[in-house]
Protein backbone atom coordinates (compact mmCIF):
# COMPACT_ATOMS: atom_id res chain seq x y z
CA UNK A 1 0.00 0.00 0.00
CA UNK A 2 1.30 3.40 -0.91
CA UNK A 3 1.13 6.11 1.69
CA UNK A 4 -0.47 9.38 0.74
CA UNK A 5 2.26 12.03 0.60
CA UNK A 6 1.95 15.29 2.43
CA UNK A 7 3.01 18.18 0.26
CA UNK A 8 5.50 20.75 1.53
CA UNK A 9 4.99 23.81 -0.65
CA UNK A 10 7.46 26.55 -1.44
CA UNK A 11 8.49 28.35 1.77
CA UNK A 12 6.73 25.81 3.97
CA UNK A 13 7.86 23.34 6.58
CA UNK A 14 6.04 20.26 7.89
CA UNK A 15 6.53 17.51 10.45
CA UNK A 16 5.08 13.99 10.35
CA UNK A 17 5.45 10.67 12.13
CA UNK A 18 6.07 7.22 10.63
CA UNK A 19 4.73 5.93 8.29
CA UNK A 20 3.74 9.21 6.66
CA UNK A 21 5.62 10.60 3.67
CA UNK A 22 6.62 14.20 2.96
CA UNK A 23 7.19 15.55 -0.53
CA UNK A 24 8.45 18.79 -2.10
CA UNK A 25 7.76 19.04 -5.81
CA UNK A 26 9.91 20.65 -8.47
CA UNK A 27 12.71 22.25 -6.48
CA UNK A 28 14.86 24.49 -8.65
CA UNK A 29 17.30 26.65 -6.74
CA UNK A 30 15.28 25.99 -3.58
CA UNK A 31 16.55 23.38 -1.14
CA UNK A 32 14.52 20.59 0.42
CA UNK A 33 15.92 20.08 3.90
CA UNK A 34 14.98 16.69 5.34
CA UNK A 35 15.48 16.10 9.06
CA UNK A 36 14.84 12.69 10.59
CA UNK A 37 14.84 11.39 14.13
CA UNK A 38 15.51 7.70 13.63
CA UNK A 39 14.71 6.74 17.22
CA UNK A 40 11.33 8.41 17.50
CA UNK A 41 10.67 8.10 13.76
CA UNK A 42 9.72 11.73 13.30
CA UNK A 43 10.36 13.39 9.96
CA UNK A 44 10.50 17.05 9.05
CA UNK A 45 10.93 18.79 5.73
CA UNK A 46 11.48 22.45 4.90
CA UNK A 47 11.32 23.92 1.38
CA UNK A 48 13.55 26.99 1.70
CA UNK A 49 14.13 29.49 -1.07
CA UNK A 50 16.62 32.13 0.08
CA UNK A 51 19.85 31.83 2.08
CA UNK A 52 18.89 34.32 4.78
CA UNK A 53 16.86 37.40 5.55
CA UNK A 54 19.47 39.78 4.13
CA UNK A 55 18.36 38.68 0.67
CA UNK A 56 14.79 39.83 1.14
CA UNK A 57 12.86 42.82 2.36
CA UNK A 58 9.62 40.96 2.76
CA UNK A 59 8.81 38.34 5.23
CA UNK A 60 7.70 37.11 8.53
CA UNK A 61 7.73 33.57 7.17
CA UNK A 62 10.80 31.83 8.57
CA UNK A 63 10.49 28.96 6.11
CA UNK A 64 11.47 31.24 3.25
CA UNK A 65 15.00 31.34 4.61
CA UNK A 66 17.49 28.50 4.92
CA UNK A 67 18.89 29.52 8.30
CA UNK A 68 15.67 30.45 10.07
CA UNK A 69 13.69 27.72 8.34
CA UNK A 70 15.90 24.92 9.64
CA UNK A 71 15.82 26.32 13.19
CA UNK A 72 12.05 26.57 13.04
CA UNK A 73 11.73 23.02 11.67
CA UNK A 74 13.91 21.70 14.47
CA UNK A 75 11.72 23.44 17.07
CA UNK A 76 8.58 21.97 15.50
CA UNK A 77 10.08 18.48 15.48
CA UNK A 78 11.08 18.73 19.13
CA UNK A 79 7.61 19.91 19.95
CA UNK A 80 6.35 16.73 18.30
CA UNK A 81 8.64 14.66 20.50
CA UNK A 82 11.83 14.46 18.47
CA UNK A 83 15.15 14.44 20.33
CA UNK A 84 17.97 16.48 18.91
CA UNK A 85 20.68 13.85 19.44
CA UNK A 86 18.90 11.40 17.10
CA UNK A 87 18.30 13.83 14.27
CA UNK A 88 20.25 13.66 11.04
CA UNK A 89 19.86 15.63 7.83
CA UNK A 90 19.65 14.97 4.09
CA UNK A 91 19.35 17.74 1.54
CA UNK A 92 18.48 18.08 -2.13
CA UNK A 93 18.05 20.95 -4.61
CA UNK A 94 20.01 24.15 -5.02
CA UNK A 95 20.25 23.90 -8.81
CA UNK A 96 20.97 26.63 -11.32
CA UNK A 97 18.14 26.35 -13.83
CA UNK A 98 19.13 28.88 -16.49
CA UNK A 99 22.59 28.53 -17.98
CA UNK A 100 23.38 32.09 -19.02
CA UNK A 101 20.99 34.41 -17.29
CA UNK A 102 22.47 36.42 -14.46
CA UNK A 103 19.10 36.39 -12.77
CA UNK A 104 19.77 33.59 -10.37
CA UNK A 105 22.91 35.08 -8.83
CA UNK A 106 24.06 31.62 -7.83
CA UNK A 107 21.17 31.59 -5.40
CA UNK A 108 21.06 27.77 -5.46
CA UNK A 109 24.68 27.47 -4.34
CA UNK A 110 24.17 30.13 -1.69
CA UNK A 111 21.11 28.31 -0.39
CA UNK A 112 23.09 25.09 -0.07
CA UNK A 113 25.92 26.92 1.67
CA UNK A 114 23.55 28.51 4.16
CA UNK A 115 21.80 25.19 4.82
CA UNK A 116 25.11 23.46 5.53
CA UNK A 117 26.33 26.26 7.75
CA UNK A 118 23.13 26.22 9.79
CA UNK A 119 23.16 22.43 10.19
CA UNK A 120 26.72 22.66 11.41
CA UNK A 121 25.88 25.38 13.91
CA UNK A 122 23.04 23.25 15.24
CA UNK A 123 25.25 20.17 15.42
CA UNK A 124 23.03 18.19 13.03
CA UNK A 125 24.97 15.68 10.98
CA UNK A 126 24.50 15.84 7.21
CA UNK A 127 24.29 12.22 6.03
CA UNK A 128 23.19 12.60 2.40
CA UNK A 129 22.97 15.21 -0.31
CA UNK A 130 22.09 15.68 -3.97
CA UNK A 131 22.63 19.35 -4.72
CA UNK A 132 23.66 21.79 -7.43
CA UNK A 133 23.76 21.00 -11.15
CA UNK A 134 21.14 22.30 -13.55
CA UNK A 135 17.91 20.39 -13.19
CA UNK A 136 14.73 20.38 -11.13
CA UNK A 137 14.16 17.83 -8.40
CA UNK A 138 11.26 16.35 -6.49
CA UNK A 139 12.19 15.15 -3.02
CA UNK A 140 10.39 12.59 -0.87
CA UNK A 141 11.12 11.79 2.76
CA UNK A 142 9.77 8.49 4.09
CA UNK A 143 8.71 8.73 7.70
CA UNK A 144 9.09 5.02 8.40
CA UNK A 145 12.74 4.74 7.35
CA UNK A 146 14.09 8.26 6.95
CA UNK A 147 15.13 7.42 3.43
CA UNK A 148 15.03 10.24 0.90
CA UNK A 149 14.14 9.76 -2.73
CA UNK A 150 15.12 12.32 -5.36
CA UNK A 151 13.41 12.31 -8.76
CA UNK A 152 14.13 14.38 -11.85
CA UNK A 153 12.86 14.49 -15.43
CA UNK A 154 16.22 13.29 -16.70
CA UNK A 155 15.25 9.93 -15.33
CA UNK A 156 17.68 10.18 -12.48
CA UNK A 157 16.31 8.64 -9.34
CA UNK A 158 18.45 8.60 -6.25
CA UNK A 159 17.93 7.23 -2.82
CA UNK A 160 19.79 9.03 -0.06
Amino acid sequence: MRMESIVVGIAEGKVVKAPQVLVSYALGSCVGVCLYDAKNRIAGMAHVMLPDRSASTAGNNEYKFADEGIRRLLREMKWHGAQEQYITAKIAGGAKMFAFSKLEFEIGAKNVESVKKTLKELGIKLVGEDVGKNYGRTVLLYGDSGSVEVRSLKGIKLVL
Partner: protein
Amino acid sequence: MDYDYDRLDEMSIDILKELGNIGTGNAVTAMSQLMQHPLEMGLPSFQIIKYEEMHGILDETEELQAGIIIETEGELRGIFLFLLKESFTDKILRTMLGAVPENLLDLNDMEKSALCEVGNIMCGSYISALSKLTNLMITVSVPDICIDMAGAILSVPIIKGMKSSDNALLIENTFSMDGDIFYNRILFFPEPDSLEKIFHIFGG
Protein backbone atom coordinates in the same frame (compact mmCIF):
# COMPACT_ATOMS: atom_id res chain seq x y z
CA MET B 1 2.29 53.18 -1.27
CA ASP B 2 0.87 49.76 -1.99
CA TYR B 3 -1.48 49.67 -4.88
CA ASP B 4 -4.50 47.45 -4.40
CA TYR B 5 -4.44 45.30 -7.51
CA ASP B 6 -7.28 43.16 -6.24
CA ARG B 7 -9.63 45.91 -7.13
CA LEU B 8 -8.64 47.18 -10.51
CA ASP B 9 -10.94 49.89 -11.72
CA GLU B 10 -12.64 49.74 -15.07
CA MET B 11 -10.12 52.00 -16.67
CA SER B 12 -7.24 49.73 -15.72
CA ILE B 13 -9.12 46.73 -17.01
CA ASP B 14 -9.66 48.53 -20.31
CA ILE B 15 -5.95 49.27 -20.48
CA LEU B 16 -5.11 45.62 -19.96
CA LYS B 17 -7.54 44.70 -22.72
CA GLU B 18 -5.91 47.20 -25.02
CA LEU B 19 -2.53 45.82 -24.12
CA GLY B 20 -3.86 42.40 -25.03
CA ASN B 21 -5.21 43.55 -28.37
CA ILE B 22 -2.05 45.30 -29.48
CA GLY B 23 0.30 42.69 -28.08
CA THR B 24 -1.60 39.81 -29.61
CA GLY B 25 -1.73 41.55 -32.98
CA ASN B 26 2.03 41.99 -32.86
CA ALA B 27 2.55 38.39 -31.82
CA VAL B 28 0.40 36.80 -34.52
CA THR B 29 2.17 38.69 -37.28
CA ALA B 30 5.66 38.01 -35.99
CA MET B 31 5.00 34.38 -35.13
CA SER B 32 3.49 33.55 -38.53
CA GLN B 33 6.51 35.11 -40.19
CA LEU B 34 8.99 33.27 -38.01
CA MET B 35 7.28 29.91 -38.36
CA GLN B 36 6.28 30.53 -41.98
CA HIS B 37 3.07 28.87 -41.11
CA PRO B 38 -0.42 30.26 -40.53
CA LEU B 39 -1.58 30.40 -36.96
CA GLU B 40 -4.28 32.07 -34.95
CA MET B 41 -4.25 33.45 -31.46
CA GLY B 42 -7.20 33.89 -29.16
CA LEU B 43 -7.50 37.06 -27.12
CA PRO B 44 -5.46 36.63 -23.99
CA SER B 45 -6.68 36.92 -20.45
CA PHE B 46 -4.84 39.19 -18.06
CA GLN B 47 -4.65 38.83 -14.35
CA ILE B 48 -2.63 40.38 -11.57
CA ILE B 49 -1.65 37.61 -9.21
CA LYS B 50 0.21 37.43 -5.95
CA TYR B 51 3.42 35.48 -5.62
CA GLU B 52 1.92 33.02 -3.18
CA GLU B 53 -0.77 32.08 -5.70
CA MET B 54 1.75 31.56 -8.45
CA HIS B 55 2.35 27.85 -8.14
CA GLY B 56 -1.39 27.32 -8.13
CA ILE B 57 -1.60 28.34 -11.79
CA LEU B 58 0.35 25.28 -12.86
CA ASP B 59 -1.75 22.19 -13.33
CA GLU B 60 1.17 19.97 -12.64
CA THR B 61 4.40 21.28 -11.16
CA GLU B 62 6.45 18.30 -12.30
CA GLU B 63 5.25 18.57 -15.89
CA LEU B 64 7.92 19.09 -18.55
CA GLN B 65 7.73 22.61 -19.96
CA ALA B 66 9.99 25.08 -21.71
CA GLY B 67 10.60 28.43 -20.07
CA ILE B 68 12.15 31.37 -21.84
CA ILE B 69 13.22 34.22 -19.69
CA ILE B 70 13.87 37.83 -20.67
CA GLU B 71 14.79 40.73 -18.46
CA THR B 72 13.60 44.23 -19.18
CA GLU B 73 15.52 47.32 -18.32
CA GLY B 74 15.17 51.03 -18.89
CA GLU B 75 12.07 52.71 -17.55
CA LEU B 76 10.23 49.46 -16.86
CA ARG B 77 12.29 46.86 -15.10
CA GLY B 78 11.35 43.28 -14.48
CA ILE B 79 11.36 39.73 -15.77
CA PHE B 80 9.24 38.16 -18.49
CA LEU B 81 8.80 34.40 -18.53
CA PHE B 82 7.16 32.58 -21.43
CA LEU B 83 6.06 29.07 -20.46
CA LEU B 84 5.31 26.58 -23.22
CA LYS B 85 3.88 23.15 -22.75
CA GLU B 86 5.59 20.14 -24.23
CA SER B 87 3.09 19.76 -27.08
CA PHE B 88 3.60 23.33 -28.30
CA THR B 89 7.38 23.13 -27.91
CA ASP B 90 7.28 20.03 -30.03
CA LYS B 91 5.05 21.67 -32.62
CA ILE B 92 7.30 24.72 -32.91
CA LEU B 93 10.42 22.64 -33.46
CA ARG B 94 8.63 20.46 -35.96
CA THR B 95 7.36 23.49 -37.90
CA MET B 96 10.52 25.57 -37.77
CA LEU B 97 13.18 22.92 -38.13
CA GLY B 98 11.31 20.11 -39.76
CA ALA B 99 12.40 17.53 -37.23
CA VAL B 100 11.45 16.67 -33.72
CA PRO B 101 14.18 15.94 -31.23
CA GLU B 102 14.01 12.62 -29.48
CA ASN B 103 14.35 14.18 -26.12
CA LEU B 104 13.31 17.73 -25.27
CA LEU B 105 15.64 17.60 -22.29
CA ASP B 106 18.59 17.24 -24.59
CA LEU B 107 18.22 19.90 -27.29
CA ASN B 108 21.06 21.14 -29.45
CA ASP B 109 21.98 24.82 -29.72
CA MET B 110 19.96 25.41 -32.86
CA GLU B 111 16.81 23.99 -31.31
CA LYS B 112 17.34 26.03 -28.18
CA SER B 113 17.88 29.19 -30.13
CA ALA B 114 14.73 28.60 -32.21
CA LEU B 115 12.73 28.36 -28.99
CA CYS B 116 14.47 31.42 -27.55
CA GLU B 117 13.46 33.33 -30.66
CA VAL B 118 9.83 32.33 -30.15
CA GLY B 119 10.06 33.51 -26.56
CA ASN B 120 11.64 36.71 -27.71
CA ILE B 121 8.80 37.36 -30.12
CA MET B 122 6.05 36.47 -27.68
CA CYS B 123 7.40 38.56 -24.82
CA GLY B 124 8.59 41.26 -27.20
CA SER B 125 5.08 41.65 -28.62
CA TYR B 126 3.67 42.53 -25.23
CA ILE B 127 6.70 44.56 -24.24
CA SER B 128 6.40 46.78 -27.29
CA ALA B 129 2.65 47.12 -26.71
CA LEU B 130 3.40 48.15 -23.16
CA SER B 131 6.02 50.60 -24.31
CA LYS B 132 3.66 52.09 -26.87
CA LEU B 133 0.81 52.50 -24.39
CA THR B 134 2.94 53.96 -21.63
CA ASN B 135 5.56 55.86 -23.59
CA LEU B 136 8.15 54.25 -21.38
CA MET B 137 11.48 53.28 -22.84
CA ILE B 138 12.04 49.56 -22.36
CA THR B 139 15.06 47.52 -23.38
CA VAL B 140 15.34 43.75 -23.25
CA SER B 141 18.11 41.28 -22.46
CA VAL B 142 19.15 38.27 -24.51
CA PRO B 143 16.70 35.43 -23.81
CA ASP B 144 17.71 32.31 -21.91
CA ILE B 145 15.97 28.95 -21.92
CA CYS B 146 15.34 26.13 -19.49
CA ILE B 147 13.44 22.93 -20.21
CA ASP B 148 12.53 21.11 -17.06
CA MET B 149 9.82 20.75 -14.42
CA ALA B 150 7.45 23.71 -14.76
CA GLY B 151 7.53 24.41 -11.03
CA ALA B 152 11.32 24.55 -10.94
CA ILE B 153 11.40 26.99 -13.87
CA LEU B 154 8.73 29.19 -12.34
CA SER B 155 10.58 29.36 -9.05
CA VAL B 156 13.42 31.34 -10.66
CA PRO B 157 11.51 34.60 -11.23
CA ILE B 158 9.46 34.02 -8.09
CA ILE B 159 12.58 33.93 -5.94
CA LYS B 160 14.04 36.92 -7.68
CA GLY B 161 10.75 38.76 -7.19
CA MET B 162 10.37 37.70 -3.56
CA LYS B 163 13.05 40.20 -2.75
CA SER B 164 10.73 43.04 -3.54
CA SER B 165 7.34 42.96 -5.15
CA ASP B 166 4.21 40.99 -4.30
CA ASN B 167 2.41 41.05 -7.61
CA ALA B 168 2.95 39.69 -11.08
CA LEU B 169 1.03 40.04 -14.31
CA LEU B 170 -0.19 36.78 -15.83
CA ILE B 171 -1.09 36.65 -19.51
CA GLU B 172 -2.71 33.46 -20.73
CA ASN B 173 -3.24 32.93 -24.41
CA THR B 174 -4.07 30.24 -26.90
CA PHE B 175 -2.61 29.46 -30.28
CA SER B 176 -4.29 27.36 -32.89
CA MET B 177 -2.24 25.70 -35.58
CA ASP B 178 -3.46 23.03 -37.95
CA GLY B 179 -6.52 22.49 -35.83
CA ASP B 180 -4.60 21.96 -32.60
CA ILE B 181 -4.99 24.38 -29.73
CA PHE B 182 -2.14 25.24 -27.41
CA TYR B 183 -2.29 27.06 -24.09
CA ASN B 184 0.62 29.23 -23.11
CA ARG B 185 1.46 31.56 -20.32
CA ILE B 186 3.47 34.72 -20.11
CA LEU B 187 4.34 36.08 -16.72
CA PHE B 188 5.67 39.53 -16.04
CA PHE B 189 7.38 40.05 -12.72
CA PRO B 190 7.88 43.78 -12.41
CA GLU B 191 10.26 45.51 -10.07
CA PRO B 192 8.24 47.02 -7.21
CA ASP B 193 7.87 50.47 -8.69
CA SER B 194 7.27 49.35 -12.25
CA LEU B 195 3.80 47.82 -12.03
CA GLU B 196 2.65 50.84 -10.07
CA LYS B 197 4.19 53.08 -12.68
CA ILE B 198 2.12 51.47 -15.43
CA PHE B 199 -1.16 52.07 -13.64
CA HIS B 200 -0.19 55.57 -12.56
CA ILE B 201 0.54 56.56 -16.11
CA PHE B 202 -2.93 55.47 -17.04
CA GLY B 203 -4.34 57.60 -14.26
CA GLY B 204 -5.24 54.55 -12.17
